[in-house]
């Protein structure tokens, strides 16, 4: 069974009349557990919209989306929030850390909404921070970190609930190439070592080639869905 099963998915904005725009025009795809999928496409191709729907941040207008065997329509907004909290992790292009609190507090944020007893928070959060190699920055304010460090803190935050799938939206978009490579290595390790399912959005072919599958979108439709033949080796981080 696929973790993510999408059939003829459509998303329109507006009232459905002539002025409404169709951002996704019948997308079908499957992502099985342990998969590493990159979604590529020029801006306006609908890749962010797709990611938002897959990540329970938005609802589609037509078609069907099953996550972990359940269709999204069965979930209330509250239940969607719970799934986002427990089963999904998010990494954003703009990091979206709370600037005025420490790395530790930032990583603890999903735990606060989880129902996990507070006693375990420190351990879970510092373990996650250690796994992205940021233990030395534990008590620094998020605003004091470099771009690469910010994104690593954000990855730690995405990891802390040990989710089934991690959605990464242009995670290297705001980074220099060296930081970007470090971040991509961490994401790749999450998939290969820790067996997390990864859905990555990028417009850079090089970044996408870390994935096992690349799906190309154009004008809200899937243009191609191919296995990566010439995948970067996991220890190859410079061109």
């Amino acid at each position: 069974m696929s973790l993510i099963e999408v059939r003829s998915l459509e998303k329109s904005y507006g009232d459905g009349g002539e002025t409404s725009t169709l951002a996704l025009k019948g997308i079908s795809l499957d992502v099985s557990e342990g998969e590493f999928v990159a979604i590529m496409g020029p801006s306006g191709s609908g890749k962010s919209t797709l990611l938002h729907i897959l990540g329970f941040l938005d609802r589609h207008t037509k078609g069907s989306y099953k996550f972990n065997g359940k269709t999204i329509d069965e979930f209330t907004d509250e239940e969607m929030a719970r799934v986002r909290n427990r089963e999904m992790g998010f990494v954003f292009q703009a990091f979206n850390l709370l600037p005025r609190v420490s790395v530790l507090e930032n990583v603890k944020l999903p735990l606060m909404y989880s129902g996990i007893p507070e006693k375990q928070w420190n351990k879970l959060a510092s373990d996650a921070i250690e796994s992205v190699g940021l233990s030395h920055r534990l008590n620094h304010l998020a605003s004091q970190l470099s771009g690469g460090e910010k994104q690593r803190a954000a990855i730690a935050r995405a990891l802390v609930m040990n989710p089934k799938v991690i959605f990464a939206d242009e995670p290297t978009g705001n980074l220099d190439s060296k930081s970007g490579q470090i971040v991509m290595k961490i994401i790749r390790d999450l998939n290969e070592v820790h067996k997390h399912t990864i859905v990555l959005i990028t417009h850079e072919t090089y970044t996408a080639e870390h994935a096992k599958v690349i799906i190309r979108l154009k004008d809200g439709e899937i243009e191609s869905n191919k296995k990566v033949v010439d995948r970067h080796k996991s220890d190859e981080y410079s061109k």
Partner: protein
Amino acid sequence: MTIKHSLKTAVEGLRTHKSRSLLTILGIVIGITSIILIISVGDGAQNLILGQIQGLGSKTIAVIPGREPKGPTDIAQTLTTTLKEKDLAALLKKENAPTIKEIMPLVFSSGTASYGAETYSLTILGVSEKAFSIFNLDVAEGNPFTEDDIKSQSDGIVIGSKVKTELFGASDAVGQKIKIKGKNFRVIGVLPLKGQVSFFNFDEIALVPYTTAQQYILGIKYFNRFIVEADSDETVSRTVSDIKSTLRESHGITDPEKDDFFVQTSADIAKTLGNITSILTLLLTSIAAISLLVGGIGIMNIMLVAVTERTREIGLRKALGATGRDILTQFLLEAVILTGLGGLIGIILGASFSFGVSIILSKVLGLNWMFVFPVSAAIIGLSVSALVGLVFGIYPARQASQKSPIEALRYE
């Protein structure tokens, strides 16, 4: 999310915007400050008045000629001639009013006293020798009246301390002669400095035998008041009804509606004056309460701005698993903490101002003024300000909770 962490998150949110938070609650601070100040000063005024009436003694009863005023616009003829010598005699009979301990007729007049070239305008009270026990008075110099002074229409006069200094300065007054309405009076005593006690400022007063006052100053045969003291607190109401029936008999009145006198106890006066100060306090408090409303609207505005400004944060929290309810709670708590804090600051400020007022009134103006911290008003003030946060925070908080995570994350 547990309430503990909702609280923590809310406090964190406020701490990151310290100066704005403080400015936001200014309206609430001012509102609560004025309410606490008004109520505290009002309570102080009430205590002052009640204290003065109690200074008169809770067993004291005044019999006043004329019809009892029915309301503030009913100008009663309080200076009528209905209290006569025969009424006094009737009241003095033990079988008519056995619970009367002391009774004193009273006449009063204003006049000018002169000593050499010095003159002073003062109130002249015609009293009996019982005035000293009834009004709790003593003499600082000289002697009080005796029964003989009253019987003989003596020319003895006891003057207040301010009258003494105005007329005599530092020199001795006792034994000197002063002139009132063309008649010479011999100063036999001087009252100690007392300040305002009950309704008379005894510092600016002169006491003469009522017989002398009736004959030589006023030229009247009637009395302005009877001051009666009941033998105990329990017998006050019985004494009042005894006085009424005795006087009705003496005046030949059968219908109580046609009474040409009325009786007032200290408790009556205290109640009336207490009502007046309560109404004034209530009025001023309601005006001050309007500022709470304005403060609440101010908070709503700022919260709406804050919600827009923090759209990204809201989106992020939602993406990480916060439910609409979590966000609602967070912003609502922020509003309630803000206004609660404003209320607390207001209570402290209001109490401090009121304390300042009490110092000015007691030290500078010499009033017997006590600072009162209005505990119940403080509790109500704190609850009301928290309520203001709840009421005016709910709309912005709902706006925040209904933001879609996508819209929120996209917001720049």
